[in-house]
């Protein structure tokens, strides 16, 4: 089922204001929808990327700072050809019970590799992209990390992206 956002009833309409009262400016509210960019070619000819805030990173890379009071505004490139055993999670702000047993429940790298191998997706970008959520300065986040990731995604030649906020 598909529905326009304005036809869906808010589950917790007061929560947003409550959080913003306690942590001013911490929650993002946009007034306009992002303009729709249509896919310009068949999916089987499209280069897809995956962007996640799950704190997934290649083993041995610099761990995310998960205890910084404001946030860690860096990201990691995760080569899309890696196997799950090459990856680890550095984030403590969401339940990782499933992901610690099968990383694909939050970072489905194996499934995306399979879909690309089958030809349903044209190809994957050389890298996927990962950062950590729970950033307490959304304006700084938009001006720095979001722009940095967008540049990296474009640099990898992505034509479509799945975004997955953990």
């Amino acid at each position: 089922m598909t529905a326009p956002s304005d036809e869906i009833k808010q589950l917790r309409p007061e929560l947003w204001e409550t959080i913003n009262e306690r942590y001013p400016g911490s929650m993002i509210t946009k007034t306009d929808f992002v303009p729709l960019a249509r896919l310009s070619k068949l999916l089987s000819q499209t280069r897809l990327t995956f962007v996640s805030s799950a704190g997934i990173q290649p083993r041995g890379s610099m761990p995310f700072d998960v205890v910084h009071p404001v946030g860690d505004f860096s990201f990691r490139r995760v080569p899309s050809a890696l196997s799950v055993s090459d990856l680890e999670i550095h984030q403590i702000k969401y339940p990782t019970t499933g992901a610690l047993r099968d990383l694909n429940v939050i970072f489905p790298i194996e499934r995306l590799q399979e879909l690309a191998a089958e030809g349903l997706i044209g190809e994957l970008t050389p890298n996927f992209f990962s950062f950590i959520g729970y950033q307490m300065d959304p304006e700084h986040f938009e001006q720095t990390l979001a722009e940095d990731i967008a540049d990296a995604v474009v640099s990898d030649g992505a034509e479509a992206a799945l975004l997955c906020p953990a």
Partner: protein
Amino acid sequence: MTVALDVTEHCKPPRSVFLPFMMGHHFGVPFHRELQLRIILAALDHLIKTERSGEIHLFPMTWAQVRQEGKVLEAEL
């Protein structure tokens, strides 16, 4: 891909898939390969078919159903 409908409504992305699952489990439960694929395919289908910005696809499974499938799957492993 979102498990937080209210957050998504405030951020207003052009298209999204709402998965009514536990946080951190957007693609279901461990080792449920078929479900993980189904969720990705739902997102890719929505990527192609969205007519106007703001459309949210509601994935037609509950977390209880997903957990039950996971239990059955793991019992067979």
